[in-house]
């Protein structure tokens, strides 16, 4: 799997994740049985270009959030390598880990539960600076005011408590807090999915402006393909702990190769694409299976409408079939023709 990801040669990667595994042991149900292991993230590799937005999409249970938390060392890393700015993160501890964490911040999904209800907004934004010792003590309040202004809040609102803000404003506080330590990488874990659509646009625009202004790099987790297509430059599609397809945004949506990506795209109801092509869509049966006992062979095979015997026994590997476009599927030929294209010709 190594070596496949050097398109452009000298591209500058801020975050490089190699063969990352995060497994959770379940408690045993009784003394005779073992508890089983959740393969939440099972051997993924990706690299995030400096100043770009890397998206991870997938359904619930696909491991997308765990993959991002592990990159911050907020989930226990079972195996693999995470390099931030060339520094191996997995072996750091204590002060050196804290110092590296200054460079990574996170914006959470739920702006209601991710802000301490008993702290004033200004103190929430200031806290990371105090903890990480960023800037001179006397200048921190001024910087809080600047940050409030920058994310579209009034500096005097720093005195308010979280419940006095609307959902969109709370998320702005969350963004200001993430910016406080002058990070290089911000993990955005479904940052707009708890917000009303009109407010989503405000936050997405804000994130893009901040990226241009500060040269930020985003690791963007989402299940919403419309949002992902809009904000991400490169996208990895996860299914049951593995990356099944990875590409830049244009070719992922214009030429999805993996049957799962195709199904995901065709499941999105769209206000633009009205009735008519309903029949040509791929419909998946059932729900995503349990990551405790992933099926042998290709993990998507039980739900895949095109699966053949090989898929059920032999595990496909992620390989590059077009420039910068990686897919993990037996059925995609070396010429990069997706299986549903062949199926369409046959009927």
């Amino acid at each position: 799997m190594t070596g496949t990801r050097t398109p452009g040669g000298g591209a500058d990667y801020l975050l490089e994740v190699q063969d990352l595994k995060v497994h959770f042991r379940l408690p045993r149900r009784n003394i005779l049985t073992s508890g089983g292991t959740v393969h939440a993230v099972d051997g993924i590799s990706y690299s995030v270009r400096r100043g770009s937005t890397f998206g991870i999409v997938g359904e619930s249970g696909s491991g997308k959030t765990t993959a991002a938390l592990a990159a911050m060392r907020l989930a226990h890393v079972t195996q693999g390598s995470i390099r931030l700015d060339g520094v191996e993160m997995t072996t750091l501890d204590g002060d050196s880990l804290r110092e590296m964490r200054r460079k990574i911040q996170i914006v959470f999904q739920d702006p209601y539960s991710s802000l301490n209800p008993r702290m004033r907004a200004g103190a929430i934004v200031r806290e990371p600076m105090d903890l990480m010792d960023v800037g001179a003590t006397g200048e921190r309040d001024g910087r809080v005011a600047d940050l409030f202004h920058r994310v579209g809040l009034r500096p005097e609102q720093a005195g308010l408590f979280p419940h006095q803000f609307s959902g969109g404003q709370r998320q702005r506080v969350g963004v200001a807090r993430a910016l406080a330590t002058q990070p290089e990488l911000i993990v955005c874990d479904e940052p707009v999915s708890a917000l009303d659509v009109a407010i989503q646009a405000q936050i997405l625009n804000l994130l893009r402006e901040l990226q241009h202004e500060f040269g930020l790099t985003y690791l963007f987790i989402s299940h919403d393909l419309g949002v992902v297509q809009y904000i991400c430059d490169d996208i990895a599609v996860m299914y049951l702990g593995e990356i099944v397809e990875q590409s830049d945004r244009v070719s992922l949506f214009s030429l999805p190769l993996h049957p799962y990506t195709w199904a995901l795209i065709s499941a999105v109801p769209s206000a633009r694409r009205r009735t008519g092509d309903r029949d040509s869509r791929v419909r998946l049966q059932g729900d995503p299976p349990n990551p405790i006992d992933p099926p042998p062979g290709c993990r998507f095979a039980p739900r895949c409408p095109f699966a053949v015997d090989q898929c059920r026994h032999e595990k496909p590997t992620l390989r590059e079939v077009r420039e910068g476009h990686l897919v993990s599927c037996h059925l995609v030929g070396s010429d990069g023709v997706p299986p549903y294209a062949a199926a369409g010709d046959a009927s």
Partner: protein
Amino acid sequence: MQTAAPLLEVEGLEVEFRTRQGIARVLDGVTLSLKPGQTLGIVGESGCGKSMTALSIMRLVPTPPGRIGAGAVRLKGENLLQASEARMREVRGKDISMIFQEPMTSLNPVYSIGDQIAETVRLHERLSRRASLERAVNMLKAVHIPAAERRVREFPHQMSGGMRQRVMIAMALACRPSVLIADEPTTALDVTVQAQVFDLLKEMQEKTGTAIILISHDMGAIAEMADRVIVMYAGRVVEEAATDEILESPKHPYTRGLIACVPHMEEQPPPERGALTEIPGVVPSLAALGAGCSFAPRCSHADDLCRRQAPQPFTVGTDRRTACWLYDEPGAP
């Protein structure tokens, strides 16, 4: 379908809630009509009155603090707002039934799903226990739950989210209601499962001829499911039209904003991305609404008239209405 008499008519519905900030008018003159077999979408942001409209139709508004102040809800001509509580118990589940956003919390965790489906049938159709359980199995088969005979004895926690929503649909349709209200039925579900639930709702609608009111904040979901759409804002209907019309040429500035602010997934994404259209500001507090149009503070077209007086719905074209002063005169933009 165009000529059929309306099955359900809501007229001038007003609902008020007593709050600490004063009286909040959560529904203000809501009018809609639903024909047999039709799907009507209700779209809008949180707090605009979508769910409250549904609860009012079912007469489930918590009273107090809520109160249905004025208006009529006519089901096949019968005004439900004047019906007795006993009559309403007959109507709920039999003539109008409802499915909710979160299938886990709307199912009873300590009864098997078979018992829960059978209960509806037993109460409304006075069937025996055995006959009603048989109906439950058949309903589970109809909503494509595999091994229905076994599943009927299982409990909600043994099922996935998508499966539970299928159970909710089976329960809601067990007595063949003429109206099904689906309040954000797929919001808690993954997108591939959402697609399955939508397919199922359409299939069941074709089989049973039930009319559907689909409440959603997602214009894409509405586009996929609904024949007609009403757009609500701050307790009022601001626009009503056929789905195709509203998507092609939204009239009300709020509807236009709502469609434009969502990043749409394109099959050929443009390489360059501009900023998304924003609707500035937030939904106003309902307890502090002034006399003017409630959208005026967020509207780029607002003028003095808008701030002074709320517009009544104006008819535009043949079969659509919008509550915006821009459409006061025929032939306006």
